[in-house]
């Protein structure tokens, strides 16, 4: 298994670079994960990441794309509440790329 070494701490990751243990996550490792994904984290990126984590804590799953866009629209303004904006933030898809940075497991299925 792969891992990220950071500040003397080891973060275990799977084949695709997702954290294996949700609880390992902190902002430092998020920054490293974002760098691996070539994502420059802005405040708005963090808003998305934080929302994903909150939602996950409540529901044990990442939010549906629609739920996410709606929530982001509420937080950052209606003109940003669409998947196009989310793809601007996370070009490889909000569900997959943003989840990785947020330390959530990758949502898989027929999506």
């Amino acid at each position, binding site marked *: 298994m792969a891992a990220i070494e950071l500040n003397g701490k080891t973060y275990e990751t799977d*084949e695709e670079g997702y954290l294996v243990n949700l609880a390992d996550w902190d902002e430092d490792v998020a920054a490293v994960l974002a760098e691996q994904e070539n994502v420059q984290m802005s405040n708005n990126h963090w808003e998305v990441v934080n929302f994903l984590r909150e939602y996950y804590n409540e529901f*044990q799953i990442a939010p549906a794309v*629609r739920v996410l866009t709606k929530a982001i629209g509420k937080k950052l303004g209606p003109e940003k509440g669409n998947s196009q904006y989310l793809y601007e933030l996370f070009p490889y898809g909000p*569900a997959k790329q943003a989840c990785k940075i947020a330390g959530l497991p990758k*949502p*898989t*299925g027929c999506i």
Partner: protein
Amino acid sequence: MSLFFAILFYAASAILVAGLAYKIAGYARTPAPLSIPTTPGPTSTAGVVFRMFREVVFFESLFKGNLWIWMFGAMFHFGLALVLLRHLRYFIEPVWFWVAILQPFGLYAGFAMAAGLGGLWARRFLVERIRYISTPSDHLMLALLLVIAVTGLAMKFLMHTDIVAVTLRAKHAISPPGRPNWRRRTDMAGPEIKAPAFREYPTIPALQPDAMAGLKCYVANEKIQEALGFPGKMADNWQETHDKAIGRMGELLEKYRSLRVFLDACVHCGSCTDKCHYFIGTGDPKNMPVARQELMRSVYRRYFTTAGKLFPSLVGARDLTPEVLDEWYKYYWQCSECRRCSVFCPYGIDTAEITMAGREILDAVGYGQKYSNEIIGKVHRIGNNLGLPGPALQDTLNGLEEDVKDDTGFDVKYPLDVQGAEVLLVTPSADFFAEPHIESTIGYGKVFHAAGISWTFSSKASEAGNFGMFIGNYEQLRKVALRVREAALELGVKRIVVGECGHAWRVAYAFWNTLTGIGAGASDPFAVELQKQLDPRYKQPSHICEVTWDLIQQGRLKFDKSANDHRIITFHDSCNVARASRMGDHPGGQFEIPRNIVRAVANRFHDMAPETIGEQTFCCGGGGGVLTDELMDLRVKGALPRMEALKRVVDDHGVNFMATICAICKAQFSKVLPYYGFKSGLVGGVHQLVSTAIQLGNEQ
């Protein structure tokens, strides 16, 4: 000398007949727990007989598949038939009237037979794809037949022989020993095909050996494997893995008649070689359907047939080695189990069944695929492929109700776990989660609302998909399917309806009856209870498209078709709906009903080229358990034929919406469309179109 030949011929005939009888007895003994339909699924016994007749007499599938093989094959077979009839004159006295009439034709038939065989044999040398799949025994067989034909002709025309003196010999001369299925031998022919009527897109690629040999999806870890009751990993000792794999193969051969027949029946004709979208897209010869089968057939022959045990290199048999097992893993995970190849095979051989068996054996030795097995684990643990727990579903559905209210002003409900609802709607979990899937979900709710039918989703049966089929594992298939039965019993529903999901509809339509008793078939107490509970006036299960189309025909739904005028629509037939199930009450309903709905809710519709839709539809490139990111290379390349067909209608008719009724198709196209220069939003659901146009009523 004559005596020697006589004995030889009798012995050869005896071997042939005994071998054939042995095989048939084996097939008869082996159960067929799941029905494996052949396209286009006839609905009556007479239909089945007629379908078989066309296949056996006219080689219909071969005709669709490859004109050259068909022509040479037909020349040979009809020639042979006539020659046989002509030779009857040696055995009957007086010679029957019609046999006498045949005599002059029979003479020419001898030439036709030889020419046909020559053409078939030439293809084994001239066509790269056929050369690749030919084994020495294929050549030997053609050589024998050709020698028979040519010596026969020579006896007639060069040195006339007194046949009556050696009748015994002539009688059996057409029976090559050993291969019980020799009769319909139809091999590839002549120069490379440019048969325009069959291939509007001349995309038969040159072979690129091992082009995809480097692509391998992630292997499941121990946790994932063990959750399904599979060995966590492969044994360290190869012999142990080897024995387990061969052992499992033997068990599967005892369990599935289809597998036995498919492994035996192939004659390497090559009709299927250019029919797989993955071969078309990659050029990797191991992605030719017959070559994919051959990965397993070679091992089957070595361990389970006399010829393969005695003369392995003659019949292309080989030992199971770690390299072979790796090859299985790679190439059985480069098949989407779409069954397109089976449409063109004169024997209806379904590569998907062999792929499933391959995956099942791999799982049995601890070599599972991460993507599929992880997902099946989530279904057992949480209830659906995505792993959406009940509260998350509820939250999402609440959000949908708000959105639809905002959009339309109507209180359309998206109920979850409602006791006593009339309809249980089982849909892929992607329909709750992803775009554009969720737009169809909105559409389902609007249909039930407008028709005034009470309905519910279930958190227990929150997944229509059944990846148990993808991995070819009967127990997993059944376990996943049983969730639907449990939910239906708990909720007391009267009808079970399946949402837009291709393979789910195959499982529901073809397997649920025997697996769970949804539909007739199973006879355990729960199945019987469920059959009593369900309303017999409706088809159980029904597809959502059948429900919507029935309502439209009854005049219970109203549409403003102009609401879809910004869309110019085409329809992509999903493999499992098209080739492994039906809709409505006559063959081909699965093609008509979704299109009827689209035409009822929208004004602008154009089909793609006929050889790319209907039963010949091309897979989206992501079905059957390959919808995972690490296989993106394969997925993009495999989408090529569909993309070419789409491009046509985009260029010619300005199509900007490709409707489909499968969650995997939607997800796959959303991802690969941009690679071909299309917008990812070009794909959507049929009920998305319904949703746009439906009139919800007058109350505000």
